[in-house]
């Protein structure tokens, strides 16, 4: 295996594009190194992107936040402006692993690992976040939900690197929340998860909503019918009931040792309802 730590995105892209063998990007390494250690992956080339300018930056601008590809979880939690604007995004990312893992793990890595149970991803999708991709043919920007294709597979082409995540500017009275079910209190893989992003009008009626579920299908899924159930409501019991039913209807989970189909389908609605209530309160609704 070769290790390269280029100082520009361009040279990182070139290294990855030209490699004939198996090549991987290294940022936090909390998935990659585990797979290497277990013998599941034997890379010919690892490209460490952490020497590239800007990869550790969280930049706030008129259009929102730009989060560099190597920003670790702990750094997200330390950024007060980001936590205030996108508490759900940060709480999702901060649920990944231990404090030691938080010192390294990145949202981009969590996304590129391609797991439908990724804690860092549902709230990003609920937020309408995008990723900036650099590749041999230049840059492109796509919605986060277009990155995962199936368990462990993503849509990036050879030589492409996600250089940053873009979170849009927040309208007034907006907030988000992320919840997952695990059988312990921390450090586990989501059995089911839900992210809800809401915008309210001045009177507390939901103007805009986005509901996303994790670990209930081959990829993380957006549930438009669940969002529709909330829009126009003040999160009354009937709206929440409709939300839960829409979530249950959208689930196509598997049965495994962590949860049955029946359990996941039921709990998806429960978590979505609770996440909606948290997001609603955070957005200033009463």
């Amino acid at each position, binding site marked *: 295996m*070769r*290790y390269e730590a280029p100082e520009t995105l361009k040279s990182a892209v070139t290294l990855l594009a030209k490699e004939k063998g198996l090549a991987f990007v290294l940022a936090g390494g909390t998935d990659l190194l585990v797979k290497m250690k277990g013998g599941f992956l034997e890379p010919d080339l690892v490209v460490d992107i952490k020497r590239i300018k800007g990869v550790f930056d969280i930049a706030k601008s008129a259009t929102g936040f730009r989060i560099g590809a190597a920003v670790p979880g702990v750094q997200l939690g330390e950024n007060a402006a980001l936590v205030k604007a996108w508490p759900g995004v940060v709480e999702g990312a901060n649920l990944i692993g231990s*404090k*030691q893992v938080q010192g390294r793990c990145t949202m981009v890595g969590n996304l590129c690992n391609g797991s439908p149970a990724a804690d860092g991803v549902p709230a990003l999708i609920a937020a309408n976040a995008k990723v900036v991709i650099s590749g041999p043919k230049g840059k492109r920007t796509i919605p986060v939900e277009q990155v995962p294709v199936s368990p462990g597979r993503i849509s990036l082409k050879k030589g492409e690197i996600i250089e940053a995540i873009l979170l849009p500017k927040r309208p007034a009275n907006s907030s988000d929340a992320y919840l997952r079910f695990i059988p312990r209190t*921390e450090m586990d893989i989501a059995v089911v998860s839900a992210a809800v992003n809401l915008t309210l009008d001045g009177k507390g009626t939901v103007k805009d909503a986005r509901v996303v579920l994790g670990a209930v299908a081959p990829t993380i899924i957006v549930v438009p019918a669940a969002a529709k159930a909330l829009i126009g409501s003040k999160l009354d019991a009937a709206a929440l009931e409709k939300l839960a039913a829409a979530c249950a209807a959208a689930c196509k989970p598997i049965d495994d040792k962590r949860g049955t189909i029946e359990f996941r389908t039921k709990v998806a609605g429960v978590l979505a309802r609770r996440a909606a209530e948290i997001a609603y309160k955070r957005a200033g609704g009463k």
Partner: protein
Amino acid sequence: MSGVHVSTTINGDAVEFVCNADEPLLDVLRNRLGMTGAKEGCGTGDCGACSVTINGRLVCSCLVLGAEVNGAKVGTIEGMAKGDQLHPLQKNFISHAALQCGICTPGFLIAAKALLDKNPDPSEEEIRFGLAGNLCRCTGYDKIVRAVQATAKEMRGA
């Protein structure tokens, strides 16, 4: 396999080494530099026995490549005591019997120090969450939590 030449700082000392491209920092510390304080429990980031800091961030050294720490500042358990003077955490781990076999202890000390550096007055829950990435099969954790609480109190001068 070609060697990677790395210049780094460990516990304030300039250190140079050559390692394999896929060699974890933990193996470099233990096998090349003779710093055997960090332990390998799982090798996959679950147990925290190999905890070190890199540029002030708590990490598992088994999930870092040696090659990555070029130009970085690494902190290990070997740098915690100042000569013969043990760190208050080390003293309290001993006086509270917060260890038995001792394999997990260096990792717990590094993680506990990282916790207290950030939060000098943690609640019991914050201590338990802060140390959730460190596994101990001897103590049942309670004595470790008490030792950290005692240290926090002592270091705050309370």
